[in-house]
């Protein structure tokens, strides 16, 4: 299982979390005020993540928000996106929203179901995965992530789930998308344990390690949170590029353990379009299990 679960585990706000959150005030997106409507922070995260998938081909997914985001992307910006589930399923067409990564509904009617040996060896390590989604309990400015322990490894304050497939996804997926809710506890200056390598100590070190050790992955490319969108700049550090409608720069800064680098002109994330919201609410998560 990949990552968002790790977050649910810690009690920090979770990318895959199920807790309801109040709808954010509607911003005015590119579609103009006429299209304005209310949407939740989770819906904004899903929409922002889905848009980042434009042009991608093969995505390694877990359940929860990433699953909805990739399915939204398939219906909007990335119609040819192919989904690989960590549990060994390729080409799933679930008849209902899968509740776990191993839901039988993703098997029935899929294109291929394979052993985990085959999935990890041939699909992931073999280099077929363009985008892996990860989340974690902690992330640092260079996108290194921890989903193992809070505190000391031998005597942990909180024992988290551990890597699952996160470690090899971070190394072998061509790029990594991160979905996490922001908080001082999750966006930290220094992570307690490095489960999934990001840009290590910076772009230069990371590039050398990837080259010398033959990683297929180029590392994290985007972090989508409940408040903002970050990409990684040429030094390998997270850069605040876009703030979601309804969120403020202060809120973003107050929920991070370091002072974030900023784009010259951070933009406001375009609000979800009515069609994006309709797809989420009517087709992808009609019961609102992940998006309320």
């Amino acid at each position, binding site marked *: *299982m990949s990552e968002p679960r790790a977050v649910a*585990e810690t009690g920090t706000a979770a990318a895959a979390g199920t807790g309801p959150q109040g709808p954010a005030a509607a911003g005015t997106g590119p579609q103009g005020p006429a299209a304005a409507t209310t949407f939740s922070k989770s819906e904004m995260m899903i929409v922002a993540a889905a848009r980042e998938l434009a042009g991608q081909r093969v995505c390694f997914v877990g359940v929860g928000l990433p699953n909805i985001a990739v399915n939204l992307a398939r219906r909007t910006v990335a119609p040819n996106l192919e989904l690989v589930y960590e549990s060994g399923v390729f080409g799933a067409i679930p008849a209902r929203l899968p509740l776990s990564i191993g839901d039988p509904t993703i098997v029935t009617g899929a294109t291929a179901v394979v052993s985990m040996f085959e999935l990890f060896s041939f699909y992931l390590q073999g280099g077929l995965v363009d985008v892996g989604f990860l989340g974690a309990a902690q992330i640092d400015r260079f996108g290194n992530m921890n989903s193992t322990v809070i505190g000391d490894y031998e005597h942990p304050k909180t024992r988290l789930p551990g890597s699952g*497939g996160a470690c090899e996804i971070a190394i072998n997926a061509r790029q990594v998308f991160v979905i996490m809710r922001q908080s001082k506890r999750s966006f930290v200056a220094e992570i307690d344990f490095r489960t999934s390598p990001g840009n290590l100590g910076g772009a230069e070190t990371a590039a050398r390690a990837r080259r010398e050790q033959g990683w297929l992955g180029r590392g994290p490319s985007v972090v989508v949170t409940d408040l903002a969108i970050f990409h990684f700049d040429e030094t390998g550090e997270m850069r605040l590029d876009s703030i979601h409608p309804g969120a403020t720069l202060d809120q973003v800064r107050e929920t991070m353990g370091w002072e974030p680098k900023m784009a010259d002109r951070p933009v406001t994330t375009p609000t979800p379009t009515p069609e994006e919201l309709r797809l989420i609410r009517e087709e992808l998560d009609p019961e609102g299990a992940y998006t309320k």
Partner: protein
Amino acid sequence: MSKVRSMRDAVADLVHDGDVVAIEGFTHLICFAAGHEIIRQRKRDLTLARLTPDLIYDQMVAAGTARKLVFSWLGNPGVGGLHAIRRRVEDAVPAGEDPAPLELEEYSHFGMVGRYTAGASNLPFFPLRSYFETDLPKANPLIRPIRSPFGDETVYAVPPLKPDVTVVHAQRADAHGNTQMWGLLGCQKEAAFAAKRVIVVVEDLVDEMVIRADPNRTVIPGLIVDAVVVEPFGAHPSYVQGAYDRDNHFYRDWDAIAREAVTTQAWLEEWVYGVSGRAEYVEKLGADRVSSLRPSGEAPSGSVDYGVYR
């Protein structure tokens, strides 16, 4: 010669105190029936191996059967933590409530799959591209670098895992233990071939000719199987593709049950010690619960032709 045994006899004869036990299955086909019988027979000092310890090992740890876990992802998928295990791992929890601290040996998913594969293949190690620049090799000194003899690349290696006993749940097997399954396959094949002893638990015992009609569907050959146990609904609250659904309600309920040692023990008393075996457990579960978990319809695979060649 038939290998069909009762769960009681199979566990009594094939699982010993101190064994390394793997009850595998990635969300699918997790044999709770075997885990519960191991609890009932009060096996002790087991090393429990699984990619995802899941509720089954949370229950087995709570019941005091285990001294060690070998794993890659320790959680209740989609719900949260495994509280009984966490109580025996985290410093913050007051000691004395549960038995001695639980030893952890931790890999990633692919590391665990590689360990079983090396075990099944009698290889001294399995190489993989993972663990670079992480703290995992520091946390677990059995994750070691290995240099390729071609070029000067270094990757990581994990050691073989050879369980004393592997338990596999499946849709069907014949009396010799030739076993077929469909849906998610996890790493049951590798875990079974790696094991000294194999217990296969099935929903249906079928005639050998059913197996022989579709030899490519066979995942585990009778050759490596020591016992076949027929235990319908034996994977609940996990599931069996085509037979019953995952009981997600129970996975959520367990979160509350396992938060306290006392409620955990009460649950074990009622649902494990308090029943003689899986048949009674299913009866206790009730026909409504069982039927609510049945698929809403059939999705037949269709048949292919192997041809008669005389």
